[in-house]
């Protein structure tokens, strides 16, 4: 077998540690055996201390910009008593030891804004165990009490005898120790946690040395471009294989069901070869977004099929306002187009497949790749790389499956690279959602609220990936398949409530006496998936925009109306008050500028935005966004601020400009010209304020997204008197 480190040097890290069983158990025997085999002290799956003295940290939550490299190194370093900047950081390959500690997604996945919350305890434990074994090892070597051995900056010191040794020097002594029970530091003892340490992943991202998935190179590798059916469900009718093969640089053409892969010495040769195919398809689903929207809206005349919340009797009260809100399908449009690299090794006792992929979930990738090429799980290795943006798209693994299938068929290492057009036309889209909101007010009070929601179930499309990857590795292949096939059907047919559809609505925080939330799941031939903040991305918009409508109808100030109904939601209230105060809520604005507010909780965190905006013709100008966030205890405040800036800009792009439209089954927005994203000239001033907290850490990658669109439409109402109930805003103006 090829030695992966011989050919792959990630700018950030080598291809991942070989993982011994996690030794967080009663004895250190695994650790001792590993030391004798390798000279390394590896107390657990995250830390290795090499004979050279290097301290290697294996990062198991991928880096896609959100800062896990830095925050997670800080967690380990805090207890290990080293400077996090001195850690050598590697990216973990697929292994069940790296399953997410969040029980709902107990697979190797970076998603749901869980990275800090789920690693907070295990990574500090990992650092503390290593530190205690090093202290005990030093004590044994020197014949002194452990209590007198102090760990600091990568060195154990015994002051009374004047002795000291580096962690590297103590590797063998430490490896011989039992794995101890450890006491973690009290927050007042923190040296790193809570500081704005500079990001540890900057250098490879500014000098061209970082290796993203698309940059992976293997010896003998070719690049594949795939011609895919342009319409969902279409069948391949004809293609000219000979023309493609005649193209300079093309080395192979491989059929994959209804798609065709052209393999060549480089991307350009493969792309031109794919054009040469002049492939045609027939049939398929002629989806039309307008018709689909009308069919969704018709379902709002009937009660929802699933009731997600019911308090009082919202149905019995005549509404003051009865409104339809709509949000479109959305693509993720990560800057790095989808790609993956795969190779099949046939030299060992069994064939083995190795995949390098910019994926958020090595766990699902391993399951889906093994299934697609008929391998056992243990014969598939998944290596993660730097990721050029995730936003949920990399929670799908279609690119990895393609690479493995093409590599298997072609019998050589293959990198599959998508174009931007491929990426936008074959995404798993944020679902289109149509909502009917009915609310009642009397002067000074909101008395009733009813939200009916019609949208597809994401778990009907993605649930099978999770089900198949969640079960133990020893599960027979057939049982795994039955499970991964049946779970999606249960969601599609509404036998199970997809909580991701109603999140952010069913948990409306306002104390309204009559409150009902209903969901009608629908099936449609558009594949849907997780998109930064998932159901909150649409429910945050409709609930906070409609609340604003009711507040005005009741004659209430938008902040005062929220405050009045959040008495039993103190963390919502705190971010609302902080954002309002910092924004100068109520202070005069220049003519034509309006101010809007929204507050929303998601991924166990709380976020409020106050946005100042104006409208000039068809153009919306967003001047200023003031944010307040409570995500529990903060590991690195700078990373939190960056994630809010990121969420604001990401959500403004969607709110103002973005929608995916199908006509006769074809996606109409195929590149950044028609799928617009915010650019420098229109980027507002963003001010972020963090609520100090000693609660457990919670999510930060997504919670900034949901309150952006409602704060913006509320600001536009304040500026112009126009209510916008349909996104994107520029289409509605």
């Amino acid at each position: 077998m090829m030695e992966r480190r011989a050919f792959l040097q990630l700018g950030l890290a080598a291809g991942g540690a070989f993982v011994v069983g996690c030794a967080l158990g009663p004895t250190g025997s695994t650790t001792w055996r590993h030391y004798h085999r390798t000279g390394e002290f590896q107390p657990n799956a995250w830390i290795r201390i090499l004979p050279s003295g290097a301290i290697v940290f294996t990062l198991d939550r991928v880096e896609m910009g959100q800062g896990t490299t830095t925050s997670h190194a800080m967690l380990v370093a805090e207890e290990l008593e080293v400077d996090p900047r001195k850690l050598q950081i590697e990216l973990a390959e697929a292994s069940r030891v790296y399953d997410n500690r969040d029980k709902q997604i107990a697979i190797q996945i970076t998603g749901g804004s869980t990275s800090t919350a789920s690693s907070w305890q295990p990574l500090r434990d990992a650092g503390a165990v290593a530190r205690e074994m090093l202290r005990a090892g030093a004590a044994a070597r020197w014949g002194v009490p452990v209590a007198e051995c102090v760990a600091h900056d990568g060195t154990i010191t015994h002051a009374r005898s004047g002795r000291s040794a580096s962690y590297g020097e103590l590797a063998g002594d430490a490896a011989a120790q039992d794995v101890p029970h450890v006491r973690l530091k009290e927050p007042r003892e923190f040296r790193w946690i809570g500081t704005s340490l500079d990001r540890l992943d900057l250098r490879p991202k500014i000098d061209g040395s970082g290796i993203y998935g698309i940059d992976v190179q293997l010896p003998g590798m070719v690049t594949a471009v795939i011609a895919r059916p342009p319409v969902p469900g279409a069948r391949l009718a004809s293609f000219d294989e000979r023309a493609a093969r005649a193209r300079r640089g093309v080395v192979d053409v491989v059929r994959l069901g209804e798609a065709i892969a052209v393999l060549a010495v480089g991307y350009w040769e493969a792309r031109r070869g794919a054009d040469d195919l002049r492939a045609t398809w027939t049939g398929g689903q002629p989806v039309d977004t307008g018709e689909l929207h009308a069919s969704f809206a018709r379902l709002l005349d009937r009660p929802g099929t699933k009731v997600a919340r019911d308090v009082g009797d919202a149905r019995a009260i005549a509404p003051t306002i009865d409104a339809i809100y709509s949000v479109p399908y959305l693509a993720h449009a990560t800057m790095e187009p989808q790609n993956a690299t795969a190779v099949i090794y046939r030299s060992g006792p069994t064939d083995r497949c190795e995949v390098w992929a910019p994926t958020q979930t090595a766990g699902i990738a391993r399951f889906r790749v093994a299934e697609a090429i008929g391998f056992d799980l243990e014969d598939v290795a998944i290596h993660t790389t730097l990721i050029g943006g995730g936003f949920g798209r990399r929670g799908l693994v279609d690119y990895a499956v393609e690479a493995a299938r093409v590599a298997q068929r072609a019998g050589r290492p293959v990198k599959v690279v998508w174009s931007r057009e491929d990426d936008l036309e074959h995404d798993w889209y944020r679902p289109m959602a149509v909502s009917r909101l009915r609310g009642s007010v009397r002067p000074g009070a909101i008395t009733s609220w009813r939200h009916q929601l019609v949208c597809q179930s994401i778990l009907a499309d993605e649930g099978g990936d999770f089900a198949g990857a969640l079960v133990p590795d020893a599960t027979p292949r057939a049982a795994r398949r039955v499970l991964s096939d049946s779970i999606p059907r249960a969601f599609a047919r509404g036998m199970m409530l997809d909580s991701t559809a109603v999140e952010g609505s069913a948990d409306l925080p306002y104390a309204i006496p009559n409150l009902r939330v209903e969901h009608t799941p629908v099936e449609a031939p558009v594949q849907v998936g997780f998109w930064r903040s998932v159901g909150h991305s649409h429910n945050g918009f409709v609930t906070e925009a409609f609340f604003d409508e009711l507040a005005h109808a009741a004659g209430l100030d938008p902040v005062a109306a929220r405050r009045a109904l959040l008495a039993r939601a103190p963390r919502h209230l705190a971010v609302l008050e902080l954002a309002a105060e910092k924004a100068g809520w109520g202070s005069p604005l220049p003519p034509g500028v309006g101010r809007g507010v929204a507050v929303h909780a998601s991924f166990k965190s709380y976020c409020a935005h106050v946005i100042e905006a104006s409208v000039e013709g068809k153009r919306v100008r967003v001047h200023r966004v003031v944010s307040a966030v409570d995500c529990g205890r903060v590991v690195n405040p700078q990373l939190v601020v960056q994630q809010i800036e990121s969420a604001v800009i990401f959500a403004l792009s969607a709110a103002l400009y973005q929608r995916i439209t199908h006509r006769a089954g074809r996606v109409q927005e195929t590149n950044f010209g028609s799928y617009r994203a915010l650019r420098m000239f229109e980027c507002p001033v963003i001010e972020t304020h963090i609520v100090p907290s000693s609660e457990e850490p919670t999510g930060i990658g997504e919670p900034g997204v949901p309150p952006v669109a409602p704060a913006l439409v509320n600001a536009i109402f304040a500026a112009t008197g126009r209510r916008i109930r349909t996104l994107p805003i520029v289409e509605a103006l």
Partner: protein
Amino acid sequence: MKLNVNGRAYEVDVDDDQPLLWVLRDHLGLTGTKFGCGVAQCGACTVHVNGAARRSCVLPIGELAGASVTTIEALAMPSGEPDRSSDRVALGAHGLHAVQEAWLAENVPQCGYCQAGQIMTTVALLAANPTPDDDDIDSALSANLCRCGTYPRIRRAVHRAAEALRKK
């Protein structure tokens, strides 16, 4: 086809219509220049051709005979850089170009994928205009997309780099 990249002469065997981006990435192994859209809309592929910022994804190699190309990998090369902007190279504390140093100081990158393009555009901007104001920055950098939302930090880093270069 002969080509000068980062001060070195190369000969590549590709069709004349192949864009420079793919010659750099697939034939020369210089993967620091990124593919984002293929139609000059996102700026991730920005390089310098004879000192000017160009979108390499739409630049046919056949038009580059005799041209000298600089990519992110060579931005901090202390010498031998044929790029016109080389007279502005100021190696900072990390041995990097002043623009890269500013990117470090402002903690600009998140996913980092677009940053090579942002940096190459900025270097060209500062070579032409050592004292850009916010409108100048908007004009030069609005052609470079960032989906992570690093614009506020890019703006600060451009000002910081401009100041560092002026002090040189």
